């Protein structure tokens, strides 16, 4: 669901095809019939933006029919935990949870807590206002001890999580799913039964998703809903199970782990906040979890500061914590775009991204670029973001002239993957090294070269500065060996710093359990600690698959953390540490040896026995019992109900997209009450009709990629052998919509939203079909987003149409479900027109 794996991850899909050949049923639940649907055993068509209704239906089906894996649920999840008496469900408050503040549009989660537990004040602050993206990787919630105070192992208590789930989802019946999602109840039931049949001791089932789930105003809750299904079915931490996020760029996982994200430092450490705590002690107190592995946050942070500031970070200066910049509001990408338009951002460096066509509301981005003093674009090609000042729909339409744009632009040619050393982190958290094969030509240089030499040049300018603001920067360590005629920095030296050292011996660290909070270790990213263990580049390991001991191939590359291939894999064994079944054997307790063993690196302290019970005052990992596999959580359990860490509710609820075709069938509260809209003149929102399928924007649109192209086309519209395979922008419409709007197959159409309009070729196909909402037919239009004005093949950019309404947890825009209008014909002059 939310993924078109055969098209966008074709080589990964070989394993799905193998599973199909071995008898697995593959369900593709998707608004479109894609190449993935064609290969699946079953395709279930649902309306864009209705996935939580569908997943909620699965949860309800499992609970109403007793199909949960009871032993797993009772032991490994928070199903038995009692929630406080003040909690109110959306069923009580017509679409709102308790704690909602209408003025700010945010939740206070104090009423969502485990009964008998006070919420730690600062932890609550951390999760509201400022992004809680770190919660996705960092424990999120906070418990003062490893065991919740009140539990009911029979799962009967009306305030236990299990019963709260039942109540929350009881209206998600097969009929509700059918009416809300537009599939048939029988299809849904067939899927629900098959999924339950494929779960339990002997079997596991997996979910695969991609940006079809994340690009929604309730994106995090989509994934949460799948997590509930998988926890109830006992599919987490087990081979063949899980929820697999298929990410779209070679190292997009890596750029989240070692984040180039405003609110994170390496290893999901939160960026310091300006208002909430003065020093490192305050930061740690506010952000750590006393129990679970996040209980060592101070060690992770001090080690990072020692990597950043070297010997200048001392106990006396709080390890340099005060030098780090502070955040105090949402400064994510789209907010920054608006800040550019409003004139507060002077300079902008873009490296390997193409916001002029790749980000939602392309016109706003191009306007932002035109508002800068200076812009640096680092890319292999002269992409739209570099050429915006003379080659854009606005320039083509005569709305703006190059002579009117004051932005100074540097286009800096980059090196590609064959021209530099480095590691990518793939979608399964696996770091793999690529070796330079040739030297880059001309002025082409790696980003490593660019940032290293840029830092060196800025340091030259500030090295004698007496100003306080420059003190921290002057303390930043910036010594990396270089080689060759280009003075290319050593990527492996950087990897060694990421891995870290024991500063007392100078030896490379072997793993994050060795990190200390007393300044004797340095580590640039705690979750990557071990990637350079023993001074060996573990990411460059390439023992051929046919020589590996197990199918897990542990000697190929290196997966964080600690080279584990499946997270929480202690859950692949029962409470006593025995495999749930022989055919699903993965990691188990070897009583004779007194250690965990198996086909993977156990995601558990290797000698902690299954019957280990923590003492009252145990801290960090010591507070996690021997039968609690989810070691990053404060209570060691998988969370069906999330008391803290997700800002828009403890349980996923069906809300309509920000631009929905009509009202919410469940509640008066139509869309996510905590969603974030950017109210800016460049970002108007389409009006929502009272009656589905009416109004100026009556149709649903959804954007996507094709196999033949890559994202916004920077790496494919520039390549002839790819460009010829999908040479023009097109929209996909059903025969019914074609008839309704007078569209001709192979002809032209103009698609419009309140942001812009673009022209596209028309593909009329039975792969698209209208959907039914409340007895009314609503049409769906498919829009690949690969095109722009540059490259070998050009065309309208779908992202000119998309708007910016965001998920409140991660600030990702809703480009998978919006509304639009369509008409036959072309735009005058071929350009686009829009609101900005």
């Amino acid at each position, binding site marked *: 669901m939310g993924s078109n794996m055969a098209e966008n991850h074709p080589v990964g899909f070989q394993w799905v095809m193998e599973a199909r050949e071995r008898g697995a049923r593959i369900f593709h639940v998707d608004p479109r019939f894609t190449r993935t649907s064609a290969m699946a055993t079953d395709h279930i068509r649902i309306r864009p933006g209705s996935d939580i209704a569908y997943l909620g239906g699965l949860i309800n089906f499992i609970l109403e029919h007793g199909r949960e894996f009871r032993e797993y649920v009772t032991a490994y999840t928070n199903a038995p935990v009692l929630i406080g008496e003040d909690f109110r469900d959306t069923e009580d408050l017509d679409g709102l949870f308790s704690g909602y503040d209408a003025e700010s549009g945010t939740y206070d989660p104090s009423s969502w807590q485990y009964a008998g537990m006070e919420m730690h004040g600062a932890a609550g602050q951390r999760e509201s206002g400022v992004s809680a993206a770190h919660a996705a990787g960092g424990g999120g919630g906070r418990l003062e001890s490893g065991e919740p105070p009140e539990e009911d192992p029979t799962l009967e208590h009306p305030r236990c999580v299990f019963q709260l789930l039942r109540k929350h989802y009881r209206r998600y019946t097969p009929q509700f799913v059918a009416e809300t999602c537009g599939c048939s109840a029988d299809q849904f039931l067939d899927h629900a039964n098959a999924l339950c049949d494929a779960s339990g001791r002997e079997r596991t089932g997996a979910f695969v998703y991609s940006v079809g789930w994340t690009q929604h105003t309730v994106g995090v809750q989509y994934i949460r809903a799948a997590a509930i299904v998988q926890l109830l079915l006992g599919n987490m931490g087990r081979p063949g199970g899980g929820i697999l996020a298929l990410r779209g*760029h*070679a190292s997009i996982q890596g750029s989240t782990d070692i984040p180039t*994200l405003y609110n994170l430092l390496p290893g999901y450490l939160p960026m310091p906040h300006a208002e909430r705590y003065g020093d490192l002690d305050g930061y740690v107190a506010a952000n750590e979890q006393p129990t679970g592995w996040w209980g060592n946050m101070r060690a992770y942070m001090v080690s990072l500061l020692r990597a*950043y500031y070297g010997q200048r970070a001392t106990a006396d200066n709080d390890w340099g914590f005060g030098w780090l910049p502070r955040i105090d509001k949402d*400064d994510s990408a789209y907010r920054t775009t608006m800040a550019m338009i409003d004139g507060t*951002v002077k300079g902008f460096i873009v490296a390997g991204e193409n916001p002029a066509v790749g980000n939602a509301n392309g016109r706003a981005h191009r306007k932002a670029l035109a508002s800068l003093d200076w812009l640096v674009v680092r890319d292999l090609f002269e992409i739209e973001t570099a050429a915006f000042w003379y080659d854009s729909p606005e320039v083509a339409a005569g709305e703006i002239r190059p002579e009117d744009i004051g932005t100074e632009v540097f286009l800096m*040619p980059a090196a590609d993957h064959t021209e530099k050393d480095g590691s*990518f982190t793939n979608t399964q958290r696996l770091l*793999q090294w690529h070796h330079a094969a040739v030297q880059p030509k001309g002025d082409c240089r790696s980003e490593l070269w660019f940032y290293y030499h840029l830092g060196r040049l800025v340091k030259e300018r500030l090295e004698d500065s007496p100003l306080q603001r420059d003190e921290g920067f002057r303390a930043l360590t910036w010594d990396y060996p270089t080689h060759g005629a280009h003075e290319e920095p050593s990527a492996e030296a950087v990897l060694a710093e990421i891995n870290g050292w024991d500063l007392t011996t100078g030896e490379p660290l072997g793993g994050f359990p060795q990190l200390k909070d007393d300044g004797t270790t340095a580590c640039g990213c705690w979750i990557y600690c071990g990637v350079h263990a023993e001074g060996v580049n573990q990411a460059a390991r390439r023992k051929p698959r046919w020589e590996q001991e197990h199918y897990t191939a542990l000697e190929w590359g290196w997966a964080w953390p600690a080279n584990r291939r499946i997270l929480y894999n202690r859950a692949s064994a029962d409470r006593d540490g025995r495999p749930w079944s022989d055919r699903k054997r993965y990691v188990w307790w070897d009583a004779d040896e007194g250690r965990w063993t198996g086909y993977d690196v156990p995601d558990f302290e290797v000698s902690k026995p299954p019957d280990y019970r923590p003492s009252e005052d145990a801290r960090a990992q010591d507070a996690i019992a021997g039968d609690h596999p989810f070691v990053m959580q404060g209570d060691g359990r998988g969370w069906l109900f999330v008391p803290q860490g997700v800002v828009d509710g403890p349980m996923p609820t069906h809300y309509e997209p920000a631009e929905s075709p009509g009202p919410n069938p469940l509640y008066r509260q139509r869309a996510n009450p905590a969603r974030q809209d950017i109210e800016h003149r460049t970002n108007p929102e389409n009006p929502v009709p009272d009656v589905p399928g009416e109004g100026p924007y009556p149709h649903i649109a959804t954007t996507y990629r094709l196999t033949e192209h890559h994202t916004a086309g920077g790496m494919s519209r520039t390549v002839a052998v790819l460009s010829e395979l999908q040479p023009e922008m097109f929209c996909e419409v059903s025969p019914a919509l074609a008839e309704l709007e007078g569209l001709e197959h192979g002809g032209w159409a103009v698609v419009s939203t309140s942001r812009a309009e673009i022209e596209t070729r028309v593909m009329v196909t039975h792969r698209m079909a209208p959907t039914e909402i409340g007895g009314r037919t609503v049409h769906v239009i498919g829009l690949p987003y690969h095109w722009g004005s540059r490259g070998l093949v050009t065309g309208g950019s779908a992202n000119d149409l998309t708007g910016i309404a965001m998920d409140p947890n991660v600030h990702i825009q809703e480009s998978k479900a919006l509304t639009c209008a369509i008409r036959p014909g072309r735009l005058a002059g071929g350009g686009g027109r829009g609101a900005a």
Partner: protein
Amino acid sequence: MSVRRSVARWPVLRQLRGMDRQGVGAAAQSDRSRAWRARTEDPDRTVASICPYCAVGCGQLVHVKDGEVTHIEGDPASPISRGRLCPKGQASRSLSQSPLRQYRVRYRRPYATVWEDLPLEQAMEMIADRIVAARADTWEEVTASGAPARRTMGIAQLGGATLDNEENYLMRKLTAGLGIIQVENQARI
């Protein structure tokens, strides 16, 4: 090649002499065809790499001859990809050698209508100057309410998901060190 050998290899003669009376097999084979062998047979080196497109992380083998990449193909040893590549991964030599590749720094003055050339070193100096100046102009030592801020909101940075971890690390370290807050990448999209 001597004239006699050339004549001896004339297909018609071979056809008349040999088993290939129809002249559709061995007799028709030209010298070029006989000598034609895979250009990857004898590379200067073959370098292990990883596909730069999506996040599956398929293994690649990059064959190099005379300082140029001659072919990129899947690495059979990879337990992830087993030597296979999708059209994009298979096109990565064409990506690397695309005629549209940018090899020189390009510079556009404010309000200009054309690109200009600019030496790389000079461009780097100019960018460093602009960062120092923009940071100084927009520095916030404290927030409006007086809390420590130690940041600039005048410089933004975008990108990272297509880059190496080591590159992201330096980018993150440099921007955090300079107090640059607005650092983002495709993971936000």
